[in-house]
């Protein structure tokens, strides 16, 4: 039986019963998805709902454990990325999948460059077509420039051009606007309209509801790897979608507890960096959760890493509990009581390949050891204490951290820092890519930390999270502090305006 849309056309692409399991996580559990020609289907779901996983299955990067893919009703398999391209499926992936050492044109056409004599790549034609594609998406870029000389937004445009370089019937966009500026976002909307008019089926993944209501014709909702619902956008309300996505009332996810805001702990003044940020200054108090909001690439992580001693500011001063601290290395930051839970968990957070307890005790080895010699019993005791507090789920404490789910890895990283008894904890996108249960746990814990008098900085790109958790919000844009909001003024509109630049949003 074939699904029929309201308008009566048959789907170009149709997935049934797709299941995908990773070690420790069932990313997708018998989900379905239909895409119709000339229509935009929004795929909605919380972080970790399995959206990107389905994109990877559709583009031949992952093979599903179970389930079928059908194009025009014909069952088909995508063993490689090229097979998916040949079947007319193309995607703009969430991560940048580009090559720094190749030129823009080469990036766009790698894998399917136009061939000339002797089967060699026809460079002239390739550059010509690349220019054409870039122009069609309104990107003002030199096709011959090396990618490493471009900024992140420009790179994203290249990724879009690359996706369009395949003459596709199905175009998938996984959070395409996350890294774009306001103007570029509007150009992208125009592009989507153009593709629709050409009869292409579009799968649009986004966390931004205004965007979804603006361009989507249909929606499909996933929750924790399960299919929840699908239907036309007409008539559906934002609240309904949220209810489907989250499966419970939103306030449960943001269990902000009142905490007494005390004396200043951290004072930052005039932090500058030649290329990353400029004139950053703020004060953080005991018991406070200070939110840092901004678009991806606004430079929040860079500021936090400067506070943590990873990068060095060219100017500026930092005081911890009134005492001036010069932080030149992470070791000095930890000594000063500043710790940082990084955004890139896989690379910067957990040391995969080593057991949980060794991760947890890493910055506290000085306390668990004697005269530089390890004492395993002490290490296990410390680990047990902190992992219990975070309700870690693991088979044993000497299990490899790499085998844990994302949320539990995050807990290990947090436990590692709590064990050092810090004064300031910086959480950079603390719930990015972790499942909804863990997310609530992390929020709950963040509240508890603040209540216990710890000063918390939370960097987040999710407005509900910022609004739900923070006492005060600083918005950054292009490496500078754009605005600060407290209490009443903390509204989604204000945050977005400040983040994209007020004059543009007007």
């Amino acid at each position, binding site marked *: 039986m074939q699904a029929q849309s309201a308008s009566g056309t048959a789907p170009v692409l149709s997935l049934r019963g797709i299941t995908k399991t990773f070690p420790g996580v069932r990313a997708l559990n018998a989900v379905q998805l239909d895409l119709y020609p000339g229509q935009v289907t929004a795929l909605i779901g919380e972080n970790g709902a399995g959206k990107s996983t389905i994109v990877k299955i559709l*583009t*031949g*990067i992952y093979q599903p454990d179970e389930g079928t893919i059908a194009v025009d009703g014909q069952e088909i398999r995508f063993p*490689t*990325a*090229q*097979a998916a*391209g040949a079947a007319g499926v193309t995607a703009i*992936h969430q*991560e*940048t*999948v*580009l*090559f*720094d*050492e*190749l030129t823009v044109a*080469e990036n766009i056409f*790698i*894998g399917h*460059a136009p061939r000339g004599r002797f*089967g*060699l*790549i026809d*460079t002239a034609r390739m550059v010509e077509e690349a220019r054409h594609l870039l122009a069609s998406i309104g990107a003002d870029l030199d096709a011959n420039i090396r990618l*490493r000389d471009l*900024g*992140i937004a420009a790179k994203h445009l290249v990724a879009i051009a690359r996706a369009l370089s395949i003459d596709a019937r199905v175009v998938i966009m996984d959070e395409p606007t996350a890294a774009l500026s306001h103007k570029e976002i509007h150009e992208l909307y125009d592009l989507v309209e153009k593709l629709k008019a050409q009869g292409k089926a579009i799968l649009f993944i986004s966390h931004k509801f205004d965007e979804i209501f603006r361009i989507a014709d249909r929606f499909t909702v996933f929750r924790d790897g399960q299919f929840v619902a699908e239907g036309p956008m007409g008539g559906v309300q934002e609240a309904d979608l949220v209810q489907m996505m989250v499966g419970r009332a939103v306030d449960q996810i943001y269990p902000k507890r009142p905490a007494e805001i005390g004396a200043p702990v951290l004072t930052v003044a005039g932090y500058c*960096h*030649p*290329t*990353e*940020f*400029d004139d950053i200054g703020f004060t953080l108090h005991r018991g406070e959760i200070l939110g840092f909001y901004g678009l991806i*690439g*606004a*430079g929040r992580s*860079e500021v936090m890493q400067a506070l943590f001693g990873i990068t060095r500011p060219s100017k500026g001063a930092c005081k911890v509990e009134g005492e001036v601290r010069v932080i030149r290395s992470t070791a000095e930051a930890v000594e000063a009581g500043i710790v940082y839970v990084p955004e890139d968990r896989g690379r910067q957070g957990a040391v995969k390949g080593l057991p949980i307890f060794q991760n947890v005790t890493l910055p506290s080895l000085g306390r668990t050891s004697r005269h530089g010699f390890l004492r395993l019993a002490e290490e296990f005791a410390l680990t047990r204490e902190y992992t219990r507090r975070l309700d870690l789920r693991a088979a044993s404490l000497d299990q490899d951290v790499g085998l844990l789910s994302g949320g539990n890895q995050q807990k290990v990283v947090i436990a590692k820092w709590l064990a050092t008894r810090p004064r300031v904890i910086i959480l950079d996108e603390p719930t990015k890519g972790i499942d909804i249960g863990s997310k609530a746990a992390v929020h709950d814990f963040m509240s508890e930390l603040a209540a216990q008098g710890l000063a918390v900085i939370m960097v987040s790109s999710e407005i509900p999270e910022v609004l739900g958790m923070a006492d005060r919000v600083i918005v950054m844009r*292009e*490496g*500078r502090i754009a605005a600060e909001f407290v209490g009443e003024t903390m509204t989604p509109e204000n945050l977005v305006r400040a983040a994209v630049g007020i004059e543009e949003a007007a």
Partner: protein
Amino acid sequence: MLSSLLKSREAVLAFAILVLVALIALRFPAFVAPSNLAAVFTDTSPLIILALGQMAVILTKCIDLSVAANLALCGMVAAMLNGMGVPLPAILLAVIVLGAALGAVNGLLVWTLNIPSIVVTLGTMTIFRGIIFLLTDGKWINAHQMSAGFKAFPRAAFLGLPVMAWIALAVVGCFALFIARTPLGRALFAVGGNPHAAVYTGIHIGKTQFAAFVISGALAGLTGYLWVARYAVAYVDIAGGFELDVVAACVIGGIAIAGGAGSVAGAVMGALFLGIIKNALPVVGISPFWQLAISGSTILIAIAVNARSQGKKGRIILKQAEHRA
């Protein structure tokens, strides 16, 4: 424009080579006579050819320490085939195929079993040389055991240059075309530069690395014949330790050891730089005992210079910085 030209690795290297040649010419003017420069180039041909093969491998984040052993084995087989009266074209074909096959052994182990290339080639390096010993019982094949045609081919002059130099030039040309204009050539950069993204674009990492080893092997095979014919001798230890020269040439030429970055011009100039030093030392009258220390210092300086010119670029979040850059 000019400043960006000065910043490019190739320009720095070309400049360094010019300075080097000028310094030598100051002490020994005959060094820059065209005929002598041609001789230096001819002498450096094996290094250039091998450096290109090594470049292909290094681009994919691997390393081939077995090139010199592969060269020696193919060279020995060439000499043995010659002894059996096999005609030269057939020998050439045979050594290239054999070299490619030896490279394929490396490549297969790296691709299918995912063994780190340094371990694989450390092992095959001794195994290939061992095979020569088993083939020959350790005996040398000397000039008088080789046919005249076999020895004459690489040194036959054509338009003022020996065939050996022409072969090197042809290999450079083909390789440059291969790197710039074929999907596989581009894939080498992709696999080394961003393996994760390569998968997204349908490029198979293992197969690409395999191909790089085959190319490196084939070039080593070709060089094996050239070497043996040129020096008119074949034995177990020919080109012993040459793999380090080859890697050094790549490093000096700015091929990033972490993969994904480098240029044909860089590799060729890296090889030429080493070749010129090697040839000039005896000429300039510097004791041969200084040679090792000089090439070591050169490598260190080259790494430092490359690291500086590649120096971490800011991500340019600040708009004003973007304008300045």
